[in-house]
């Protein structure tokens, strides 16, 4: 667990170090709000989880340039802080399509940037049994100052119990602030 945390801290530091030399994107930092659900195999609360994350995207939204997000997930309507846990992820867009099937449905110009991500969830009910995850985000729409993601699929693996599960990110709205 400590190794994983150290690895993520190193990645965050490297990305932060790259900030002064990055000039590709005027937008670098932001926040995101998401809605997640998990399968019963993950042994998390069955209720929908509201996520609040901060993210850093120093390289812009080009394929294979990473971004990092860290935040919390909490089940809605559950009156117990023991179910809140932390979530750290590295995301990687794999494509960038200006002409995509959803452009006719949207008011603003957008780019479809389907991506993958990997991360770790820990703390709260996951205390002592951290879960690593790999996600596929097929519908990810980039509007320049915000990103909308729908129906992201997440595969989870509990290192200690050696069990797999899955989750679904219904939506994720990421908004650049700086």
């Amino acid at each position, binding site marked *: 667990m400590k190794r994983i945390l150290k690895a993520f801290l190193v990645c965050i530091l490297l990305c932060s170090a790259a900030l002064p030399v990055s000039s590709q994107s005027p937008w670098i930092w932001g926040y995101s709000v998401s*809605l*997640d*659900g*998990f*399968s*019963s195999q993950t042994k998390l*609360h*069955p*209720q*929908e989880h509201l996520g609040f994350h901060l993210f850093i995207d120093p390289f812009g939204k080009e394929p294979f340039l990473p971004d990092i997000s860290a935040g919390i997930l909490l*089940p*809605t*309507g*559950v009156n117990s802080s023991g179910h809140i846990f932390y979530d750290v992820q590295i995301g990687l867009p794999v494509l960038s399509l200006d002409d995509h099937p959803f452009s006719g*449905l*949207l*008011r603003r110009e957008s780019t479809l940037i389907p991506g993958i991500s990997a991360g770790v969830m820990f703390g709260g009910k996951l205390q002592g049994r951290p879960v690593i995850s790999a996600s596929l985000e097929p519908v990810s729409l980039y509007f320049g100052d915000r990103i909308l993601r729908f129906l992201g699929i997440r595969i989870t693996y509990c290192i200690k119990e050696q069990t797999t599960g899955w*989750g*679904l990110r*219904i*939506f994720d709205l990421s908004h650049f602030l700086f």
Partner: protein
Amino acid sequence: MSGKLKLALVLFVFLYCIPCILSAYSHGLTLGTWGGTPDGGYMEPGTHGYFGGTFGLTRRIEAEVFSVVQTTPEPFSRFYGGAACTFSLVAPRELPFDEPVFYLNMHISLGYIQQISTSFSPAVFARFTPLVLAGPDYTLRERGGSFGIIYDFKQENFSVFWNFFLVDFY
């Protein structure tokens, strides 16, 4: 095709398709979410997808037919169907002769919902939507932060529910 699916299809045709053809106002398709309190709520704890259609009845009133399906923790284990009538509080949703409408709005809705997968569980609800952006004239409408109360006739109790977002495509 199962009997319940046939019934849902017939209801969709009669409650949405035919009114859309007859209505002089615009119609659209809706995607969104439905959530509620985990203890004593109308639905089982989990995430739920919301699919539906809206069509205008007057300048300010619209009708909505929808279905709700559980997506986690047990996908497609429960289906719900319902209908609602929505009133635009701030400004008309649509005006004749391509007159522009106000971009911001608020909605209040009254509706009926029932489970159609495992048991007959009827309920009525009232919903307030504090943030409505755009409308039929803008191709897309976003409804955010909807919340309301629902009365379950079977359990004879009130509970709170919410729709984090609803997006209408026209």
